[in-house]
């Protein structure tokens, strides 16, 4: 076990009237991209939210040998970035560049950002190739553009742990590929966890897989293992056909019968 791995050993977790997890044990390797793969309602989002204490749990979660329950809010805010859907109609006209600066606000004291924060915002815009969006309002962006901005808002803190909740949802094919490419750039520097229900996006983006169904781990491991065990089939309850190109898995097609 590496010192910055995430170790989840939770007895129970969930919402007020709905238990999602019982006796959940997962180890997420550091510096890699891990995909939480599972159908809707399998507990992916709940698991991500547990990792920054948004969901109550009993048991232990270790983030790099540190007990999550003992960390301060500020420490969690600096260490972890979570990005899911963001509420748009209520933004009252926030611009992309401002949203990026706001995302760095946990890194400085006082109200005024530093030159460094502005440089970081510009760097993120460059890196994601969205410099032209900088002065646009968030509520005027297309969903593909918005996904990239949201990803930028998560990346700008240089978090050690990046939690992405369905970064591929509502996107066309090209945008999915672009998002996947951006995420892969950060592998090695950052421990990234992606929650998704698209196996194609998962296998083309992630290096490690945790397959969830009804709050239980069906299988975890690298690509060879989960394909060999036919775990994706078990997780989703469908028959699949795998497509390889140059010995690389490039596509997964569900069989309709």
């Amino acid at each position, binding site marked *: 076990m590496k010192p910055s791995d995430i170790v989840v050993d939770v007895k129970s977790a969930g919402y007020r009237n709905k238990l999602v997890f019982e006796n959940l044990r997962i180890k997420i390797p550091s510096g890699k991209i891990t995909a939480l793969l599972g159908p809707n309602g399998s507990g992916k989002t709940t698991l991500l939210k547990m990792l920054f204490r*948004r969901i109550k749990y009993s048991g232990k979660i270790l983030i790099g040998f540190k007990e999550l329950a003992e960390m301060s809010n500020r420490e969690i805010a600096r260490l972890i970035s979570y990005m899911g859907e963001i*509420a748009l109609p*209520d933004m009252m006209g926030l611009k992309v560049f401002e949203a990026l600066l*706001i995302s760095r606000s946990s890194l400085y004291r006082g109200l005024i950002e530093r030159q460094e924060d*502005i440089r970081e915002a510009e760097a993120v815009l460059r890196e994601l190739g969205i410099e032209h969006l900088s002065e646009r309002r968030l509520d005027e962006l297309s969903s593909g553009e918005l996904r990239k901005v949201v990803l930028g808002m998560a990346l700008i803190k240089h978090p050690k742990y990046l939690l992405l909740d369905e970064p591929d949802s509502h996107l066309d094919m090209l945008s999915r590929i672009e998002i996947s490419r951006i995420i892969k750039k950060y592998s090695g520097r950052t421990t990234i966890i992606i929650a998704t229900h698209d196996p194609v996006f998962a296998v083309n983006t992630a290096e490690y897989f945790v397959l969830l169904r009804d709050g239980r781990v069906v299988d975890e491991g690298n690509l060879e293992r989960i394909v060999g065990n036919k775990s994706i089939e078990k997780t989703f309850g469908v028959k699949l056909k795998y497509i390889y190109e140059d010995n690389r898995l490039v596509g997964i097609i569900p069989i309709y019968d």
Partner: protein
Amino acid sequence: MSIYRLFKRKILVFSTILLLLLSALVLLGFLFIHLGYGSSSIIYEYRFNRIMAASLVGLILGLTGALLQSSLRNPLVDHYILGIGSGGVFAVMLFYLVSSATAALALLTIVAGIGGLAALIITIMVAEAVGGSDVAYVLAGIGVNSMFSGASLLLSYIVASKNPFIAYALVGSFVAVDPGWIPLLIFLSILSFILYIFTAKPLNALLIGDEYAAQQGYNPRVARLLIVLLSGVIGASVVACCGLIGFIGLVSPHIARLLLGTSDNRMVPVIAGIVGALLLLLSDNFSRLILAGPFLVSVGEVPAGAIVSLFGAPFFLSIMIRRFRGRGA
């Protein structure tokens, strides 16, 4: 880097321009009274207090209005719409009814704050019970507002024998300005400014979303409730002085956002406060001049609150139309 205007520069430019406008207006206020009635030191003192009171109330209402809008993520609300002001007025009336003596202003302010808080809690509970959408808040506010202002109107007839100026509380006016208002209003302004400093960053996170705020280290529900209640209570307290003044808290943040071209909560509340001061001072000057002063011979004046509503209400309607046109709702 140079294309991005920095926080510091932007806010400096706008506050300077607006403060210059404000001082011009203050000067104008003095000038008008000089033209109208000649110069007496009593009149000058009265004018000074009135100008100060109108600006400070405008500042408080504008600033806390911006905080209310951001924390509820609802551009359609202010103290008046949510019924907070009416709750404050009702509490003041009730206090006059049960107490025989003329009360100290500080005590009245606390009473008004409690009344506003009660009204706000009712509005929030009703609005959240029906889903908590922006329209739900407006509708719940209308209900609470009507309830309290109706009751206040009733009480005002009974209380009038104890305080002849009490009817002004219903519409909001600076006619009965008292030197005692000024330190109290300065105190409330400082309170609202402190609230702004501590809430600017969490409000920005809340603007993006609850999950996002939680991840930034803020408890979204606690933060939102705290900011709404505090800014509501501060806004309600001013009715103890000048009565119920609507729409300043609604209009000023919109003008501030328009001027700044952003809804960044580090800038909007400050500029909204200055805009509010300007608007209310302008309305008060206008309210004096429309019937009295050098233009007409008749005696008396229109309450500033009436002037503000005259301009504020159509503005509110236009915001609503713009907001819902795109939604098809």
